């Protein structure tokens, strides 16, 4: 048994004001959100915050002693770098606790223009080594880095031992092919991807086609999956499609699954992770409530050390219910190969 020095922050997603309030009310230490435009990687119709909504959200979170982190985690597009810089300026004016950035040019702008502003390196920054993270600390004074979901637990520990930058890891949410910040699969089908327009498989290219006994998913006309009536569905992304490869049709890249770290939460705490992130700004306030409440309960159970920690079936069933593909994995954390 060991005593946990401090619990990592629970960082929860908010795509709307009700979702933000749900996160705060159910035990998130911090919420992360984005503007209603392509400066963030969940740029979906009707989602995210205008300045008025964000001011209200920040007031609500700060009123209850929680932090607000703002994601500006797409890459400035040619000829439009000003839009991204203005987003950084607006975030500073609004008084967010930290800005989550991916692009090194934008990090450079932010640290020069707003040296007092706390900056985090986004998962989209794709830094998987302590060298990359220490570089961003030296050059842009980042205080925290969010690790891509490709590292084993031992590799995460190795990073933490070799940097003074706080490390944030994912604790729950949909998994994709995880080539974060470098993935262009969606562009291959429709010319738009998270890094460019802030959305993977933008909805205007997606067609759910109901056929007798099956539902077909098409992305810009390309058939990416076909579900039988009793089969669980997933997000319409190329990486989770089923393809005919040498005569066999299967999930050639990635199965629709969700990451769920409840079973290794004590190990994640032991190695000194500073924050645990929940994926899902595109989800509803209901999802935020369910996941935040569950992870809060699990973290609180570790307050007294890990000797009596066990994953309650109620936690697992709550998380399993909201999972994409209705199956959960430990992702790369317990992968035998590197």
């Amino acid at each position, binding site marked *: 048994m060991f005593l946990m020095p401090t619990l990592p922050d629970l960082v929860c997603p908010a795509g709307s004001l009700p979702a933000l309030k749900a996160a705060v009310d159910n035990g998130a230490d911090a919420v992360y959100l984005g503007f209603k435009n392509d400066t963030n990687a969940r740029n979906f*119709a009707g989602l995210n915050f*205008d300045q008025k909504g964000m001011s209200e959200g920040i007031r609500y979170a700060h009123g209850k002693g929680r932090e607000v982190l703002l994601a500006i985690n797409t890459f400035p597009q040619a000829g439009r770098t000003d839009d991204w810089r203005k987003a950084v300026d607006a975030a500073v004016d609004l008084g967010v606790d930290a800005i989550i950035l991916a692009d090194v040019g934008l990090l450079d702008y932010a640290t020069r223009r707003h040296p007092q502003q706390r900056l985090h390196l986004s998962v989209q920054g794709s830094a998987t080594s302590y060298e990359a993270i220490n570089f961003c600390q030296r050059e842009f004074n980042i205080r925290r880095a969010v690790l891509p979901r490709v590292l084993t637990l031992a590799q995460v520990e190795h990073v933490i031992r070799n940097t003074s930058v706080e490390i944030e890891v994912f604790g729950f949410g949909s998994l994709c092919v995880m080539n974060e910040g470098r993935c262009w699969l969606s562009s291959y089908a429709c010319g738009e991807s998270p890094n460019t327009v802030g959305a993977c498989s933008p*909805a205007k290219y997606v067609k759910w086609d109901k056929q007798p006994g099956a539902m077909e998913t098409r992305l810009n006309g390309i058939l990416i999956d076909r579900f039988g009536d009793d089969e*669980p569905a997933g997000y319409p992304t190329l990486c989770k499609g089923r393809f005919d490869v040498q005569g066999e049709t299967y999930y050639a890249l990635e199965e629709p699954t969700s990451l769920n770290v409840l079973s290794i939460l004590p190990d994640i705490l032991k190695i000194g992770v500073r924050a645990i992130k929940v994926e899902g700004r595109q989800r509803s306030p209901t999802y935020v409530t369910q996941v935040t409440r569950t992870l809060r309960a699990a973290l609180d159970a570790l307050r007294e050390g890990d000797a009596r920690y066990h994953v309650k079936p109620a936690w697992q069933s709550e998380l399993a219910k909201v999972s994409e593909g209705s199956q959960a994995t430990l992702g790369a954390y317990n992968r035998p190969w590197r």
Partner: protein
Amino acid sequence: MSPNFVIPRFRLPAFIARVGHKLPQWPHTLALVGALNAALKLRLLPESELAALEDKLFRVRILDTGGEASYTFRNGLFRPVFQAQREPDLAFAANLSAYLQLLARQEDPDTLFFNRELEITGDTELGLIVKNMLDAVEWPALPQLPLPGR
């Protein structure tokens, strides 16, 4: 509603849908459109997104009651459509319990979609706008009615 009240997942017996199909569809269509217009009046729906709904045809189908409602949004009001002349731009189909779970914010629409309990067909982007619009609504707390005898 008590916070401990949970809407179970249920499916009404098949004969209800068989009967329901034959019943007039206007009462629940009017009720739905009335509720949507009430939400408009209370300014619960974000005005910035409403333009995307203009002249779109929506259909909400309740599989296990056999009920169905079509409506459109025109000149700032939701309006019933009793004899739709074309395929809807956006169609929802689910059992009654799924709709109730959604409205009570007990289940997440993506969860119901993944589990194949909620079917969304038509214009996917329009579907996303509607979903996110409903997610962004801050339902007012129900007024506390004074109890008799107090």
